[in-house]
């Protein structure tokens, strides 16, 4: 596609998306999280890595003017920790999801497009990976290797691709059968051209939606790993905050701020991604109510033999 057409479609997608309340809420929530992660050093009143000398009164101190969200088990400011902690969650979320989608997308397109023994092999491999319980395997791998940010990203990324592989393969199979692909072949296009210009652009929207949903899964996975104490203890993350709070008596002290803050942070991020993902799905999936191809479309003459998925006799825009 030339840049001109891409811009037409992107503008159309964007305007349709703007009208989608759920997606917009998700997007704004996510952008807020990214904002605080990026500007954490400027926003945080304290530097969470600074060594503090504390007295017994400073530990699990309730929210006050100086510490709006109180202090944690080591007397550090919960708010500052929270702001910095967003970074790890988001970094792991995005990068791991990216790895997953690249692997899943490649496997899906290859299996769907080439079929035959390759498809069989790849899909059986996918099935095996699906059957293995994700999380125990993640725990195992992380425990065996050094607990570092990179390792966590890699492990979550390499184990999270199965759902996208299946999705992409399905979509590839369906696009492969379309008449315009046949027409491209009849023009003389080879496989690389067809994959690049026909299969990929039609699979991409689904991949985008799937990525967003995988991001939320990756964030959750990371949080749980940190909570279990399997990540780098010097890294501040929300899971880590929860870990320390739980294992160091926040419950018995009644220091709800140390628990709720990271917990709600995780919920916030996951919810943001989910809402954004569903919103995008509505916009990008032609089978649902509104989609980007309905941009400015008036109703066109219905074909006499409507394609199976169109409704009989009910002219509706954007179908």
């Amino acid at each position: 596609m030339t840049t001109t057409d891409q811009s037409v479609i992107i503008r159309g997608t964007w305007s349709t998306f703007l009208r989608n309340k759920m997606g917009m809420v998700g997007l704004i929530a996510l952008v807020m999280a990214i904002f605080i992660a990026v500007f954490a050093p400027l926003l945080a009143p304290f530097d969470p890595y600074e060594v503090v000398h504390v007295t017994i009164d400073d530990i699990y101190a309730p929210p006050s003017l100086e510490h709006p969200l109180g202090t944690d088990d080591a007397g550090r400011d919960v708010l500052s920790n929270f702001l910095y902690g967003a970074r790890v969650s988001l970094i792991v979320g995005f990068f791991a999801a990216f790895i997953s989608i690249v692997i899943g997308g490649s496997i899906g397109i290859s299996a769907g497009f080439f079929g035959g023994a390759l498809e069989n092999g790849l899909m059986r491999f996918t099935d095996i990976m699906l059957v293995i319980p994700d999380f125990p395997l993640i725990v195992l791998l992380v425990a065996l290797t050094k607990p570092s940010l990179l390792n966590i990203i890699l492990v979550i990324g390499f184990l999270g691709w199965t759902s996208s592989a299946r999705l992409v393969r399905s979509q590839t199979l369906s696009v492969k059968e379309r008449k315009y692909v046949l027409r491209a072949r009849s023009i003389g296009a080879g496989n690389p051209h067809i994959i690049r210009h026909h299969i990929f652009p039609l699979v991409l929207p689904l991949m985008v939606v799937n990525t967003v949903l995988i991001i939320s899964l990756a964030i959750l996975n990371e949080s749980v790993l940190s909570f279990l104490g399997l990540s780098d203890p010097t890294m501040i993350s929300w899971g880590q905050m929860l870990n320390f709070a739980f294992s160091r008596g926040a419950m018995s002290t009644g220091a709800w701020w140390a628990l709720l803050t990271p917990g709600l942070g995780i919920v916030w991020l996951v919810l943001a991604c989910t809402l954004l993902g569903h919103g995008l799905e509505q916009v990008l999936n032609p089978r649902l109510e509104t989609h980007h191809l309905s941009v400015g479309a008036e109703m066109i003459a219905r074909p006499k033999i409507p394609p199976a998925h169109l409704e009989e006799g009910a002219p509706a825009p954007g179908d």
Partner: protein
Amino acid sequence: MEEALPPIIEIKALCKYFPIKQTNLFDREEKFVHAVDDVSLVVGVAEVLALVGESGCGKSTLALTLMGLEKTTSGSLQIAGQEVTELKGSGLRAMRRNIQMIFQDPYESLNPLMSIGDIVAEPLKVHGLVKDKQARQERVLLALEDAGLKPAASFIQRLPHELSGGQRQRVVIAAALVLEPKVLLADEPVSMLDVSIRAEILNLLLELRERRGVSILMITHDLGTVGYVADRIAVMYLGRIVEIGPTLSIMQNPQHPYSKALLSVAPVPNPRQRRERIILQGETPNPIDLPPGCRFHPRCPVAQPHCSQIDPRLRLIPAGHEVACLEVKPKITSGPG
């Protein structure tokens, strides 16, 4: 008419069989779908030939082999003098510049995410012709205008769903024209369009034949449109041509019982005309287990005993066209044909 220039398409004894997957381990013999079974025909330069028949007659398979989208089982297929059955890879791709296809469904033939300009430019890009963007754009505009989409520039940026069925079909035609092929293979080009716009598209095809000298091989089941556009008709049944010749000759004087039946049931928009309709019983049998002798004889209203034993060949008859039927008297020629 055809003597002056060599034919653009020459098909000799073409066969295309699809093997059936064996579900039973103990099947003795391999079974085939005889989609195209010994078809020979010739298409001249700037000629319109219509392939008529119902589903299962092999016309679509024949089209796919002509486009090189299916490999032939046996026989020869020459396009613009080149033997297509031997071509592979880049040779095959180059051959595609000679013959381009127009598909039946204008709603599915265009990638919904690609602009009209890109769709029409795609063949040029695939074949690496016209590297210069400006020149390419000009070719695209020319093709769009030739296909009747004016002003061409206003269509370049639009997306398929913004266009009507007739306009979309014109885009498909423009994309086929941009490579300047010698043959257009039109597979039911108007059957999914509203009646009031069919004539437009058919007239366009005729115009292209006049202006560009392109030959058209039209596949259809609609005898009405055939009468309008075609110079010659070939009627197919179960993988064979049963009758072939000039359009008027066949439409006014069909000889093969199957052609007669088809013509008799084609709907005519005149309630006062009560015709004798020959409605064949049953459906076209599957092309796997072919009946012995003439493959039409089980449904033929005038079948004789010898029809189940002898397989008729196409022979010239006095009416001026060729028929494959034992019950039709061939033309007696004094010398070798």
